[in-house]
């Protein structure tokens, strides 16, 4: 059932007649016999809208959600409060059914929203400019590494092993095939130390990459690294949680040249990992190396303010194989989602979200410490995520799940050396009652 094909049988007949044809088959006479499919597709028969909805409701019911269980999962995606107005605006067909704004005259809504997004991201990052967005946090680091390599004409990238391992895997997969050398620098006690970097940090290094706060929640001393990198003519790339940047000093103010990150915390649904939002901001010296779309403000022939995609000479459709990146879309709707979120929360709201994340995470940390049943191996210089060592963690996590908790991410899945290490994230959404219940339930299991 081709539900969305409006043609009547008469129309099909008449249109074929215009072409001197009698059947739809005739439209495929240019495809050689040897290339044709001569049987029906082995797919189920089509169904109606209500049947489709019911089909998916059944599948959805087989999953548990962060509304069913109290969520302490993080590791790159966080369960924040999302204002209701966002989805109502995203669902406006004029936004979600538009294409990339190639015809600027009839795409001013998308273009102006991109300009606003770029400004907000630049401000959060403390840098001169941002682009219209990238796919997500992992591939955003790839683009930053490629940018740094183009700028410095060097091929080596030093990445702290406190960067999210999921991101590091993406960086390795793409950059190494692209011809870059990725060196993961081993760190101690969940935090990068300058001493570990210094021996490798020489004039062959294009960039150092750190995460802020890092994968284990710790606030890295990024300024020390940026200062040292500068001495070697090396760029500093920081992957930052944008919510944390409402509380932590902007990487751009601490010497970072490129700031990237995962924008999901900015009001984007968890959605089992996507669609999310990559962002990238950089100093003005790197403008010509930026990948992807950039919207700029200008005027029309009547002098009226308007917006266009600009600096397109950087991009794949013009430069072809000499382009720095193959990216030709962005995550426009997710960038809009984040822009609306930041606008609704405003300066004060973002600071409040960041502060509550910080306060509640530290409250939980301190309560667990007081209880004394788990070990807390990392320093207290964390934002909203920390590591706990829990005896028989895998089993305990299962028991916590039975009691209604997504109690944390098992780090053993990323690194076999981290057996029984659990990464616990706390957002502003968690209440004191939920935090206390977590401690009590965990204490009960570990008695």
């Amino acid at each position, binding site marked *: 059932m081709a539900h969305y094909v409006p043609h009547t049988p008469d129309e099909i007949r008449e249109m074929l007649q215009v072409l001197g044809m009698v059947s739809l088959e005739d439209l495929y006479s240019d*495809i050689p016999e040897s290339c044709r499919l001569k049987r029906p597709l082995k797919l189920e028969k089509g169904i109606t809208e209500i049947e489709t909805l019911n089909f998916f409701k059944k599948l959805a019911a087989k999953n548990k959600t962060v509304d069913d269980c109290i969520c302490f999962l993080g590791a790159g995606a966080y369960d924040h409060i999302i204002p209701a107005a966002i989805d109502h605006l995203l669902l406006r067909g004029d936004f979600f059914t538009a294409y990339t704004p190639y015809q600027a005259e009839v795409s001013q809504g998308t273009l102006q929203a991109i300009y606003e997004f770029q400004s907000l991201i630049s401000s959060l990052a403390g840098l001169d400019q941002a682009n219209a967005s990238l796919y997500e946090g992992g591939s955003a680091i790839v683009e930053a590494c490629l940018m740094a390599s183009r700028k410095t004409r060097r091929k080596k990238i030093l990445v702290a092993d406190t960067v999210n391992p999921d991101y590091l895997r993406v960086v390795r997969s793409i950059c190494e095939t692209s011809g870059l050398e990725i060196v993961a620098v081993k760190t101690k006690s969940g935090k990068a130390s300058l001493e570990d970097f210094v021996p490798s940090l020489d004039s062959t290094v294009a960039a150092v990459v750190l995460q802020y706060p890092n994968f284990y929640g710790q606030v890295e001393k990024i300024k020390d690294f940026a200062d040292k990198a500068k001495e070697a003519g090396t760029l500093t790339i920081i992957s930052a949680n944008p919510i944390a940047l409402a509380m932590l000093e902007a990487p751009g103010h601490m010497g970072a040249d490129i700031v990237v990150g995962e924008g999901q915390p900015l009001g984007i649904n968890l959605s089992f990992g996507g669609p999310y939002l990559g962002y990238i901001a950089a100093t003005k010296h790197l403008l010509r190396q930026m990948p992807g779309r950039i919207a700029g*403000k200008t005027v029309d022939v009547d002098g009226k303010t308007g917006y266009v995609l600009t600096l397109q000479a950087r991009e794949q459709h013009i430069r072809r194989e000499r382009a720095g990146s193959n990216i030709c879309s962005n995550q426009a709707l997710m960038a809009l989602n984040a822009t609306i979120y930041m606008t609704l929360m405003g300066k004060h709201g973002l600071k409040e979200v960041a502060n509550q994340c910080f306060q509640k995470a530290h409250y939980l940390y301190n309560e667990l410490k007081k209880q004394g049943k788990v070990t807390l191996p990392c320093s207290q210089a964390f934002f909203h995520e920390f590591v706990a060592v829990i005896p028989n963690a895998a089993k305990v996590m299962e028991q916590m799940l039975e009691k209604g908790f997504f109690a944390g991410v098992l780090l053993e899945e990323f690194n076999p050396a981290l057996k029984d290490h659990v990464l616990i994230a706390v957002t502003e959404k968690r209440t004191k009652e939920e935090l206390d219940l977590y401690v009590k339930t965990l204490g009960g299991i570990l008695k």
Partner: protein
Amino acid sequence: MTEPLIFELSNDERISYQIPALDVPAIAPEEVIDSAYLRKELNMPVLSERDTVMHFTRLSRLNYSVDSGFYPLGSCTMKYNPKINEDIARLPGFARVHPKQPAATIQGIMEVHKLLSDSLAELTAMDAMTLQPAAGAQGELTGLLVMAAYHKKKGNTHKNKIIIPDSGHGTNPASVSMAGFEVLNVESDEDGCVDMEKLKKVIGPEVAGIMLTNPNTLGLFEKHAKELSETLHSVDALLYYDGANFNAIMGWARPGDMGFDIVHLNVHKTLSTPHGGGGPGAGPVGVKAHLAEFLPVPRIKEENGKLAFSSSDKLSLGSVVASNGNFLVLLKALAYIVQNGGDGLKHSSACAVLNANYMMEKLKAYYHLPYDRLCKHEFVITSENLADYGVKTLDVAKRLLDYGFHAPTVYFPLIVPEAMMIEPTETETRGTLDSFIEAMIKIAEEAKTNPDLLKEAPHNTPVRRLDETTAARKPDINWYKRPE
């Protein structure tokens, strides 16, 4: 009227966010975090919810969209985006699931992955799929990384070149460079297909593969597809099928049957997921069995009747995004497949081709048609016949905006000067096509009688032609750091 920016609407005191008050005892952040690392200043606007909603609603009204009108943008497949798909993507059992939840709590999600993978494999005649790539361009990159992994395993270190016909997609060459290969361009013949003679001349041991867009960007089916696969395979090169134009052939022909090893699809084109103003999309990649071991991890595996994500493949190329892909986008693609069924998809493709050929036939008396043969989902015409009046393709495109239509893709493919690439899709009625045709004919007349009308177009859009030169020369791309 110009819509102000959020920064211009801001009032620092107009606080309207709603977060419950902090209910745990607070500590001073500087007790645990070096105060040099605590933020001193944060520039952000402050708006009421009402003003925010009004602002973004007004912005939306400045956009053209599929919901509001005909969008014949070639190579973009701007078909109708079914509304039920949005409802399905908003079911909490999908939208409110954390990517790191235990396997037992995401069995339904894994079923979605499996169902979609199986359906796409059937549509393309491939054996294994990855749903990870976040967009078509990332699908291309993934396919090329698969090629790189394959040649690495076989010790084919001398293979460093990828053939790209000049009628291929614009992103192909950049993807090739990004994957560390070099581009070998091959020209088209007078029929608009890959020139087999020229191709055979560049075939050599250093060729790692080919990327073929089929139907190509002229909207023509590459009739040598099968012969290509034999030629390339004879030198152990792999064939990549750029399926961005797959909407033309669903159920009629399959890349795997043509001898191709790798294919990507753009679900936001072929499978009706919305474009969102430029994303998010998804670009699943399918491969033949002998390449499955190179696909990105994690992959869905079945263990004791339960589905699980596994990262155990030793030869995997790794990952191209941190998660398992743009799940909600993929979900909408599956919803479209399930609702249409095999017959529905096949009929959809046929009607997309019907619409394109109908328009081509009706327009060829008024515009130059460089390749006058059966087209697939799209066709290319040019304004060459209007050049004597000083009218360019850009002028025709801009004038179409005045008539309430979106413009076709212009100046692409590069091999046709003054190209207009028109793709109507199957979801448009003949009535819509006829009004567009009528507008195009009228514009061709205006070009002769009043060319300035075109050269100064558009006249009644929210803004008129914009000064792109100044925008590029003196970039104003950040409100907080505007040029003097």
